[in-house]
């Protein structure tokens, strides 16, 4: 007798491996968005643009002639840091600083406008034809993953590097926010901006720092994604919408929560891609709606602090 698993086991294995790699990328972007929203209280639609520009910059930088093959990995990091360090401070200083006191709807419109400007800027620089550079993936090669009595050849880049970087980011960020003064200052501003100011904290400096860090994380997500896919206009939009779903599902201010939720949504989407492709786009939102119906503050959102 042939069971469902005999027929679809390998497909399921592939979906899980793909989902893990995809979740790692989604985490990198959504954790930055979460951090930025927590501190600045601005939902930055243009966060997805950092992802897209990070990806394109990494592909361009990695495609330069004469680059040794081992450099294909550090180049990804370099591209992300460059993009984040240039765009982050400029945008925070010139644009966001003017809208902190505005209504959320104005902030949303402004960052959406910024997103569209950056989207067109990408088309001006990189055109609308697909751009790809998979040197890093090919250089690292593949590994045979045993699964259900069979093997699945899978790229080491997606199996080890992407989840590894995401895990390092998770652990590093959690350590930074809890154990360093700058981290605690960021948390303090997230919890209560006014009280933090009264404690001597310069909130403006924290905004700049956090926004830049968020931009670097998003750009790193894009740079890491670039060797695994073809870059086309629209990847920024796809990413930001998915990241919104992750932070809405996880609840605000939870780094570990964002990681688990990214995993949940990444795997959910990936399983849908293999078994019900027509549902691929809606699966993350089905998960989000199901969670929010039961827990409106999100899976890991903090309950109200005790008042008396």
């Amino acid at each position, binding site marked *: 007798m042939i069971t469902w698993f005999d027929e679809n086991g390998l497909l399921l294995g592939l979906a899980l491996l793909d989902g893990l790699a995809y979740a790692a990328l989604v985490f990198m972007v959504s954790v930055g968005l979460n951090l930025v929203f927590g501190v600045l209280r601005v939902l930055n639609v243009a966060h997805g643009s950092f992802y897209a520009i990070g990806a394109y910059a990494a592909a361009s930088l990695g495609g330069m002639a004469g680059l040794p093959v081992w450099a294909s990995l550090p180049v990804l990091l370099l591209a992300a840091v460059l993009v984040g360090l240039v765009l982050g401070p400029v945008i925070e200083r010139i644009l966001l600083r003017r809208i902190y006191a505005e209504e959320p709807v104005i902030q949303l419109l402004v960052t959406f406008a910024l997103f569209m400007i950056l989207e067109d800027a990408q088309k001006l620089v990189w055109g609308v034809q697909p751009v790809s550079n998979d040197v890093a993936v090919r250089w690292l090669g593949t590994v045979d993953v045993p699964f259900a009595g069979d093997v699945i050849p899978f790229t080491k880049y997606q199996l080890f590097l992407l989840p590894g970087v995401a895990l390092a980011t998770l652990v590093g960020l959690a350590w930074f926010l809890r154990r360093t003064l700058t981290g605690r200052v960021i948390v303090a501003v997230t919890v209560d901006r006014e009280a933090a100011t009264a*404690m001597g904290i310069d909130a403006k400096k924290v905004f700049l720092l956090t926004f830049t860090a968020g931009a670097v994380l998003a750009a790193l997500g894009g740079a890491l994604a670039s060797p695994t896919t073809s870059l086309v206009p629209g990847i920024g939009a796809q990413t930001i919408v998915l990241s919104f779903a992750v932070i809405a599902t996880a609840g605000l201010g939870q780094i570990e929560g964002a990681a688990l939720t990214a995993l949940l949504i990444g795997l959910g989407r990936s399983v849908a891609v293999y078994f019900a492709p027509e549902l691929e786009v809606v699966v993350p939102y089905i998960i989000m709606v199901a969670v929010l119906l039961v827990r409106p503050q999100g899976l890991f959102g903090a309950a109200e*602090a005790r*008042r*008396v």
Partner: protein
Amino acid sequence: MLDLEGVSVAIAGAPVLRGVTLHVPAGGRVALIGRNGAGKTTSLRTLMGLLAPSAGRVLIGGEDAARLPAHHRARLGIGYAPEDRRLFGGFSVRENMVLPAEVLGLTGAEIRRRLDLVFGLLPELVTLAPRRAGGLSGGQGKMVALGRALMVGVRAVMLDEPFQGLAPALALRYAEALKRLRDALPELAILITESNPELLRPLVEATFVIERGEIA
């Protein structure tokens, strides 16, 4: 030390303070008495630089504070305990207290010295120190907020309705702590707000009464 001179403040277009003049001398203990909504909290937030006056002057240590960023108050030795405590719930009590001192860049030795001083004045905090601030009761939280304000407030502290909602026994302990404060740190200016004028009478030298945004 802390002065409002003819200060008017509007929040979301509605006038809350109208020409308020208030003076807290160096080392002075002053009460600001008024009903809910009279403008007590707004007065303190304006002194802290958290609200910008539409008219009048704010003076900190005799200097015009118009160009002084809000976060520089701590550097000038001004501590603030807001009415609703505003502790950082995820941090321990000790971390809450140490944070403003670390932000100021004080040395470890100086931070320990100040902690010992505050623990001496508010012995309740010694046992609370390792606990998570988010799990404290309202009364305990008020005590921690006072301790945190004292970590940077070496010249002045502003305490917003510290007795509000305290159980009688805790209110008594808080009042005793304020008396110890007066004896141990005679150079420290204190501005306390309260709705009940009787409560603070033994603790302060001067009283301002605020009604509907104006000093009566």
